[in-house]
């Protein structure tokens, strides 16, 4: 134990002094600061942008309609833009009124077919302007909706629903059905969706950030373990070390030191991020209209996430240690690490995509990702933050991870002990198992 501690302290101090560590820490802090600063600047700028948008809308003459709509609804409605309506053939009588009712945030204006080209040019420049063109084709109306792009202007479905309904009413009335009956036939039962809880995007965003950080940390610090061991081996320091301490103790001490360094760096980065959040992010900051909060980051969840970080790191660190011990030349380290990198990448993408795409579901792929030890550190933290992991799943996942660590560590120590004093060509994976110290 004393030897493990000695290796731990020496490796920790040595790694913390390295330029690579200092530079990477500085860059991380800089990125966080820059991101928060950008949010700070754009948030205050966003308010004035909204003001500018209002002025633009007023310039188009929409203020009257806006005022009228607001008065009518008896509430504040922010005008999103203008929609020109052209129906020269009167294919859908009453269509414009129906459209205005369906699009309360737009001022629907009667357009002039002669100005079609001008409208198109204006729409091409301005996302707030749209055009609905109704034409009579082979006895029935056809509608064309013109917007700047798919993301701006009026919603196609809303336009289609409004004009379809009006057309049906017109047809029924033409067949002698009274307006009341036509309205009844055309009545849609209102369906309201009530959300009992608060919609909180924080868990989702934090989950993605944590999973990303987890992958970065496991990859970066695992690489550090591998490099440290490869450097000691190729510089022959290992020859001096192994007479002093058992290889297993060296391996454990090194892995623990690099893990502790990772935790310290992460803790420092997160503390800095919290300070930046506190001082730079405005209180009313929202992401896609949703306020961000840390309510999903409870103490229990934080502890479980920390456990996954430590265990996930430990699993990959011992495998990386073997990669480092298998090379005799430092330039072989990347190719030696390839199998572990592939496992990490596949596991990360499996965990990440099943997490973000299937949150809240129990798909087979997601279940596999939760239980497979290589993968679980990349999915469970996300799911914990979003509150959709069953306790039993969590216990089984953690147990599988611990068992995998014990087995792989035992195997890694055996391979490491045998390969750490092997010099010459890089040891192939299949030969590692045959080696005997």
């Amino acid at each position: 134990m004393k030897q493990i501690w000695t290796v731990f302290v020496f490796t920790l101090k040595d790694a913390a002094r390295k330029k690579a560590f200092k530079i990477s820490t500085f860059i991380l802090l800089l990125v966080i600061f820059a991101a928060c600063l950008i949010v700070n600047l754009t948030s205050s700028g966003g308010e004035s942008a909204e003001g500018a948008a209002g002025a633009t809308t007023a310039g188009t003459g929409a203020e009257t309609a806006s005022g009228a709509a607001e008065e009518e609804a008896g509430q504040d409605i922010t005008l999103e833009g203008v929609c020109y309506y052209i129906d020269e053939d009167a294919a859908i009588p009453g269509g414009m009124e129906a459209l205005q009712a369906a699009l309360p945030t737009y001022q629907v204006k009667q357009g002039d077919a002669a100005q079609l080209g001008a409208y198109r040019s204006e729409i091409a420049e301005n996302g707030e302007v749209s055009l609905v063109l109704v034409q009579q084709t082979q006895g029935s109306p056809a509608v064309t909706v013109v917007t700047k792009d798919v993301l701006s202007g009026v919603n196609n479905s809303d336009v289609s629903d409004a004009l379809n309904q009006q057309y049906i009413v017109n047809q029924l009335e033409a067949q002698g059905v009274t307006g009341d009956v036509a309205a009844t036939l055309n009545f849609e039962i209102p369906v309201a969706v009530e959300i009992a809880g608060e919609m909180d995007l924080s868990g989702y965003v934090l989950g993605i950030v944590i999973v990303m950080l987890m992958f970065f940390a496991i990859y970066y610090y695992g690489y550090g373990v591998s490099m440290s061991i490869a450097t000691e081996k190729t510089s022959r320091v290992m020859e001096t070390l192994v007479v002093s301490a058992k290889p297993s103790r060296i391996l454990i001490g090194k892995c623990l030191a690099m893990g502790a360094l990772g935790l310290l760096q992460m803790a420092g980065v997160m503390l800095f991020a919290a300070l930046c959040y506190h001082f730079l992010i405005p209180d009313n900051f929202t992401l896609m209209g949703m306020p961000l909060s840390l309510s999903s980051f409870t103490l229990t969840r934080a502890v479980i996430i920390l456990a996954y970080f430590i265990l996930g790191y430990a699993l990959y660190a011992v495998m990386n240690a073997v990669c480092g011990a298998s090379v005799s030349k430092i330039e072989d380290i990347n190719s030696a690490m390839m199998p572990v990198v592939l496992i990490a990448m596949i596991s990360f993408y499996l965990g990440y995509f099943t997490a973000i795409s299937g949150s809240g579901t129990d798909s087979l792929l997601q279940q596999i990702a939760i239980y497979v030890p290589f993968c679980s550190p990349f999915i469970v933290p996300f799911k914990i933050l979003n509150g959709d992991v069953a306790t039993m799943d969590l216990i089984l996942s953690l147990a599988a991870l611990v068992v995998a660590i014990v087995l792989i560590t035992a195997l890694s120590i055996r391979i490491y002990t045998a390969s750490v004093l092997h010099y010459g060509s890089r040891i192939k994976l299949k030969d590692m198992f045959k080696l005997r110290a």
Partner: protein
Amino acid sequence: MGLVVTNLVKRFGSKVAVDHLSLQMEEPGVFGLIGTNGAGKTTSIRMILGIMSADEGSSAWNGTPISRDTLSFGYMPEERGIYMKNKVLEQLVYFGMLRGMNRSDARKSALSYLERLGMSEYKDTLVEKLSKGNQQKIQLIATLVHNPELIFLDEPFSGLDPVNTEVLRGLLGELIEEKRYIVMSSHQMGTVEEYCKDILILHHGQTKLQGNLRKIKQGYGHTNLVVSCDVNIDETAAGLGLTVIEKRAGETEYRIQGDDMANALLSHMVSQGFYPTKFEIREPSLSEIFIEKVGEAS
């Protein structure tokens, strides 16, 4: 009881790297383990120290099987291995602590050895900034910092200039006086001859010769004659059956078969009025014995 190694065997696949190696070192002093490159010296040392498991055989120190946990041994490997980007004292303390010392004792011991080897001024210097000879000394201190009873030195003098060689000789002398057990592996036969009471010659993993060096040499008898004379006596010597082993500046070494042959040459020279300034009858050198044994095996 000292060091007892019994029938150590190591195989790598079908190749036998070390074949039934046995040796005993009952008294303090220096034991010479010599052999060509690839003879199995390093593998043997690793097995003796328990760093590498043996396929067969055992090694014991005072009756106890040797391992890192049971014996405080020191090993200076042939391939030097110290942290180049760390400071001298820092890593010496680290190596001392790895061998069970506390920080204070490790520091004290490291400073003491640095003082003995004239390296005190470099204690806070990065190792990469030291000369090769000084790095070698740091490696030696890393081996000795925890004051081991049993010491293995693999090529301790390689890469040292004459001044540093002399410093190291002094330290080796001190260790011998302190009654340490030292196993030295070296290609420098002169050094082995100077320090080792007992030797073992390894070749392709097999023990070719083993025993007390003085007795081994005595067993060969007087086989060499070194003559320094102002006149060339090669023809006379050849006439008496002597063969030239080596011609050096101012002297010639001949192969003889017994003292009579040397005495006959001396009589002949004196009768002709040729008086030698040097006339030395001696046993073969370790280097010659080594070449003979290894040559026989090859």
